[in-house]
């Protein structure tokens, strides 16, 4: 299965990178009220079982891909 992991700075956590992007977008003339910058990780998991893939990717997020103190994550799964 192909997993797409989205890691985001948690709500309320100051995101200086997002602020810089936001200000740059405003500078370009876009009407932007907020920008937040996270991370995207594409993973091919060696199983076709959706439940098993989800369980594995959740563990990957908890152990390595996201820092639970400051980041939240979302997982999307599709057959490769």
């Amino acid at each position, binding site marked *: 299965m192909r997993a797409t992991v989205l890691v985001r700075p948690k709500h309320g*956590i100051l995101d*200086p990178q997002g602020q*810089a992007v936001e200000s740059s977008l405003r500078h370009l003339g876009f009407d932007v009220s907020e920008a937040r910058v996270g991370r995207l990780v594409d993973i091919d998991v060696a199983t076709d079982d959706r439940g098993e893939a989800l369980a594995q990717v959740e563990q990957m997020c908890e152990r*390595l*891909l996201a*820092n639970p*103190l*400051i980041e939240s994550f979302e997982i999307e799964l599709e057959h490769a």
Partner: protein
Amino acid sequence: MTEPTRERRPVVPVVVWPGSNDDRDAQLALERLGASAPRVWHTDDELPRETAAVVLPGGFSFGDYLRCGAIARFSPIVPAIEAFAAGGGLVLGICNGFQILTEAGLLPGTLRPNESLSFVCRDVPLRVERADTQFTSRCADGQELTIPVKHGDGCWFADDELLAQLESTGQVVLRYAADANPNGSVADVAGVLSADGNVFGLMPHPEHAVDALLGSTDGVLILGSLVDAARLSLAELV
């Protein structure tokens, strides 16, 4: 069989990861202060015999990929460091070493990109909040130290609840002086101690402040405290 060295130098290994770059300065400083400081590669799965304290140096382990320290935290040497710390062993993390210790859960909080998004490299004034720790025993309470920082991800963060807890237990040992916070860290935190008091991490680099030729020698107060404590633990082994 190892024989006790005649000089009775406490063994204080410095762990080296790919991308570490302050390991030799740390080694030099520790040896000048009377320790034996072998450099240990991160794929070793045990610490040298008679290790009295461990130093995790600064640098950019694994290129700071993902998050600073996030990959290094899974190196084979880390379980040995965790076991050493669990037994009360002294562990000091400097800069990237601090980041690795927070990623490993040996120290509270986390290090985020500097609020300014700029890399900062300069001497900063620090205030010693507690001189009754094994890492600050050569200091005085409230003493101001000048030690350089050089980091892009030094913004220590803890949520309100965790911060309140750490303040109440006296785990914030080192703070940037008022109006001199170089990275936006919460409550001006520059260095935190573990609950048990044997693991300490700080963003400033004491190993770069041990020679008058290069400016401040205040780093000796931190590393010297560590070597003193390591020497004491050596005496206890005999």
